[in-house]
């Protein structure tokens, strides 16, 4: 990522408190970190640490209680002009739309020309090895394929940023790692900045340029780990350097989580 070292997102003292029937619940407290353009930042932490909440704030689906996310140096906690693709935890496809119609949805809602959007979708289907399934319905696809379709939908508007909320967590480990490497391949072509949430340390190390490690009570950043690896291909998984990184990440996580 030498070509672009500019900071795209600067997260500053982000805090989110939820009001529930049983009183206030801390969602996030005092989160700060940077994301550079073209970087893959992976948020890792135990369930309930607020990593999904954080991603939802990135996507403007919820507002922070305090703090802000500065987008490209603009002091604006609600940068509507930041274009991003969002990929949900479980494939959020519309069961009544065919695969291709699911993929074009974001552009369709913008009222963009039908012909060009379908051409674009076909290219993405090719990129994700789904050409044959263009006119299938989601129910006819496996979980892994559906999640690929969700990625294609996230990519259709050529967003510079991808926000991914545990996109492969519902899949088995073999499929998950296959898609992790597929995502890395896509990234080589599209050069997205990716913010990726997961609770799998292995997955985090496979994907990340930087891992942000989050702890519980308070739900805040307990460490950062820069990951430097040789070429990221499936052979990586038998490389000792890979496991060294996994072990070091795990150590930071364990140190921050007193109850482990």
């Amino acid at each position, binding site marked *: 990522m030498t070509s672009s070292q500019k900071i795209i997102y600067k997260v500053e003292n982000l805090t989110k408190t939820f009001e529930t029937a049983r009183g206030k619940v801390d969602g996030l407290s005092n989160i700060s970190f940077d994301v550079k353009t073209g970087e893959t930042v992976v948020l890792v932490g135990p369930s309930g640490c607020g990593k999904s909440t954080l991603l939802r704030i990135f*996507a403007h689906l919820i507002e922070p209680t305090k703090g802000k996310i500065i987008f490209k140096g603009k002091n604006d906690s609600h940068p509507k002009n930041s274009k991003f693709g*969002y990929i949900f935890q479980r494939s*959020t496809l519309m069961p009544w739309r065919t695969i291709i119609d699911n993929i074009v*949805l974001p552009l369709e*809602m*913008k009222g963009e020309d039908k012909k060009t959007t379908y051409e674009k979708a076909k290219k993405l289907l090719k990129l994700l090895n789904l050409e044959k399934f263009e006119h299938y319905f989601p129910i006819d696809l496996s979980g892994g394929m559906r999640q690929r379709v969700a990625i294609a939908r996230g990519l259709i508007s050529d967003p510079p940023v991808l926000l991914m909320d545990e996109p492969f967590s519902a899949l088995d480990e073999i499929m998950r790692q296959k898609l992790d490497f597929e995502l890395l391949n896509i990234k080589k072509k599209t050069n997205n900045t990716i913010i990726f949430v997961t609770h799998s340390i292995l997955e985090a190390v496979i994907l990340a340029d930087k891992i942000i490690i989050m702890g519980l009570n308070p739900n805040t950043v307990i460490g950062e780990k820069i990951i430097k690896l040789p070429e990221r291909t499936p052979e990586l998984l038998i490389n000792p350097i890979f496991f060294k990184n996994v072990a070091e990440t795990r150590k930071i996580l364990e140190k921050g989580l007193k109850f482990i």
Partner: protein
Amino acid sequence: MTKFKKIFLIILSIFVFISLWEGSIRLFSISNFLLPSPFEVLNSYVSMALSGRLFYHTWVTTVETISGFIFGALIGIVLGYLVSKSKTLDYILSPFIIAAQTTPKLALAPLFLIWFGFGIISKIFITTLIVFFPIFVNTAVAIKSINPNLKDLMKLVHANRWQVFKNLELPSSLPIIFAGLKSGITLAVVGAVVGEFVGANAGLGYLIIFGTGQLNTGIVFTAIVQLVLISIIFYEVVSAIGSRLMKWHHSEKDVHY
């Protein structure tokens, strides 16, 4: 199951039913006052059909059923949608809606008769009232149970209200609304017949009352058979419309009620 096997099973079960009917009449020598044989019913059915009487009464009941169903469905869907969108409206309307549902329709039927007369209007009102509730409840549930991720997705792609309605709310709620419509259409026939029982001069329900008065069980059974037949047809039509609109839906693949 193959289509052939399905049809075979249906025909077989009807055949067994009719055989048991005929057999028990012969075995226990039941008088045809009480229970006519299947052939006597068929005889009465054919003669009433040929005279055009059956068609006339069927037509009246059909008009009442379909009109009541359409009104009830429209009101149910619109109110169900509004209530699912607004808590305030939910609280304002719910006492009336629950009261309308818990009041026995039979108790209201005489009132409707007084207000709207012996003709089809009073029957349409009763039918509408009966049909409304399951469709209303199903619509409200359907809208409330839309996948929250899909709602988020629509926000993320900056869809406007109409786009959300057309591309998410409507298709997402169709399966549950159609479940309501299916129970609604069978209730619609019940509503029309209840209305006719209370006071009418035409319709299959009227025919049952008339036949009973004459102690002519042939007429009564003819009317019942006809009611069963039109109920099945109405149900299948609603079902077919649903399948047509929801080719994608898994419940349409192998489950058939």
